[in-house]
């Protein structure tokens, strides 16, 4: 089935079309979900909710406004952000602002693959992780992020800066750990 055929089948509510959509795009959207997922509300839950939303809204998809993949990514991101909002009460107090900026040898993270990077991103505190993902990976502006997360633009910038510093620190620690594993 071509993408157009899948979309057409999904608009008609065909289970066959929907299943094909899941089969084809689940791996890609799973990566998006994983980057935003909480420990207690898993990536799989976000992915499933996203597909249900996609099925419901697929007749609103307009190919003149962007790619189908991009449209699905946006839905997945929105689903993830809503899941995070719902759980904000219990996650607010879990974060620490004490971050020491560390400079990292640029060659270190060249050896990290996507899975390792995803794990490191996942370890970032929520507010840093969200801004980092939205800005660095998805390409959202700070203004858009501020609207999405209901924060100030300045906070978005500051969180991004802290996210990057923390990520560098984690990369460095990861590198040391890897060295230790390899040598020890």
């Amino acid at each position, binding site marked *: 089935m071509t993408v157009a055929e899948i979309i057409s089948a999904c608009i008609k509510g065909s289970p066959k079309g*929907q*299943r094909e959509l*899941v*089969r084809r795009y*689940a*791996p*890609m959207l*799973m*990566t998006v979900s*994983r*980057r935003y997922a909480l420990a*207690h*509300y898993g990536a*799989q839950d976000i*992915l*499933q*909710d996203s*597909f*249900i939303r996609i099925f419901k809204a697929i007749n609103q998809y307009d190919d003149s406004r962007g790619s189908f993949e991009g449209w699905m990514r946006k839905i997945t991101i929105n689903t993830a952000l*809503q899941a995070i*909002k*719902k*759980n904000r*009460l*219990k996650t607010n107090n879990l974060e620490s602002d004490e971050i020491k900026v560390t400079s990292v040898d*640029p*060659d270190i*993270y*060249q050896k*990290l*693959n*996507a*899975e390792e*990077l*995803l794990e490191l*991103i996942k370890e970032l505190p929520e507010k840093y992780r969200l801004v980092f993902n939205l800005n*660095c*990976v998805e390409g959202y502006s700070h203004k858009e992020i501020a609207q999405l997360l209901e924060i100030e633009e300045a906070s978005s910038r500051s969180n991004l800066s802290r996210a*990057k510093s923390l*990520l*560098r620190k984690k990369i460095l620690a990861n590198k040391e750990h890897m060295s230790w594993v390899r040598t020890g």
Partner: protein
Amino acid sequence: MGKDRLEEYIKDQVFDHHSEVDPDLIWDNIQKKKRKKRPFLWIISGLIGVIIMGIVINLFLNNETEDQFGLASESQTFETEAVSNSNYSSHDIIEDDQELILQEVKKEITESVEAYPISKQKLKSKKQSDSPNIVGITMTEVFREKVNSNIHSLLPKRKGALNVSFSKANSSQINEKYDNPRLATLGLLPQIQSSNPTNLLFDRNLIQIDSDVFLLPKETIERSENWTKAIGVSGSYLKGWRNLKSKDSLEQGLDYRLRSEKFMEEWGLGINFDLQHRSGFVISTGLNYNQINDRSILSSVTEELLVPTPEELAGTGVYQNIFVRERVRYNKIRMIDVPLRLGYSWQLGHQALSVQAGLIFNISTATKGNIINFDEFLEVSNSEYFRKNLGVSYEFLIGYHQRINDNWKLSILPSFKYYGKSFTNPDVYSIEQRYINLGLGMRLSRKF
């Protein structure tokens, strides 16, 4: 690789990365989520369906009966006298000539049924004859069932259909309900049943029966409309049970709330509009203001040292006071609703019983107060944690109605309400909050 290249590198690695995932498992879970149904919705829908079906069958049978029986033409006015029993007791019955007897029987039955459908009563329109027919036909059916087969075949070829009217007209209600309360003459029926057609003195009995067949409900004569409209005011008080559920894993917060929330109630005031069909079918709507109150108590323990205490003696109680502080909060949820109920009412003289089931369309919801968030109160007045509009809830009512006079009616309505949708906004807050309320309502309504 500079600072920006870190971002680029991560984006290159992560953006188009495909994670390992089992699409079949995802698909199965999606199907499970989509299949989530609310059984209560089905029960209510089924109940409403049954009521509607019952009403439709009832109306259909009434119409059919009227067509077949055709007692009154549209503009005809009946003014008849009850037939004296003596008219019929004077007949000579010739025992040997069964054919003649049967012809007489047929003639008399037919005459009695057709000529005296409504004894001592006046009807002003065809519509008014509907309900009397129901009673009459029902009794004719009884009559047919009781007599033996020969007599049965001689009865007018008209079928009655509805047994409800007869079965509910027990002797204690006759005087109140009917202008011609001679239902007791039914007691003669067994005599006919046990006799041989050739030597029956059925003529006398039959005439009595016929004159009773067309009992007229008083209300039907007075009323010329199919639908009765009534407007009223109502008040209700319900005890509430909150159903809290954590969608995710906020078990600690949920536990605090379950332990601290002590008392829930709902009271309401409203204006109601009822439309009741002559068959008993009721449609009810209105505009209600409801308020749910709940009281929460959060206990906390503080210790105050009375004198400087040696470290080794701390906690022994000698040197310190322990205060238990209880903080009480009253939360209010205010709602404006429009109910839509369908039901059925059984008229029993001046009283009536009814059942109603329906939907409550919530127009707006406002909140005032706090919810417990771990060990503190969280101000949530009109916050995004609550829905602005609940959507649809469900209600089931049983009603006892007492007629005060021709126009006024007082109703007592035990009711059950189920707020199927969470009051909290699922997009923002992960504890779902529903109510199951049970209580009593009163309504004073006037016909117009």
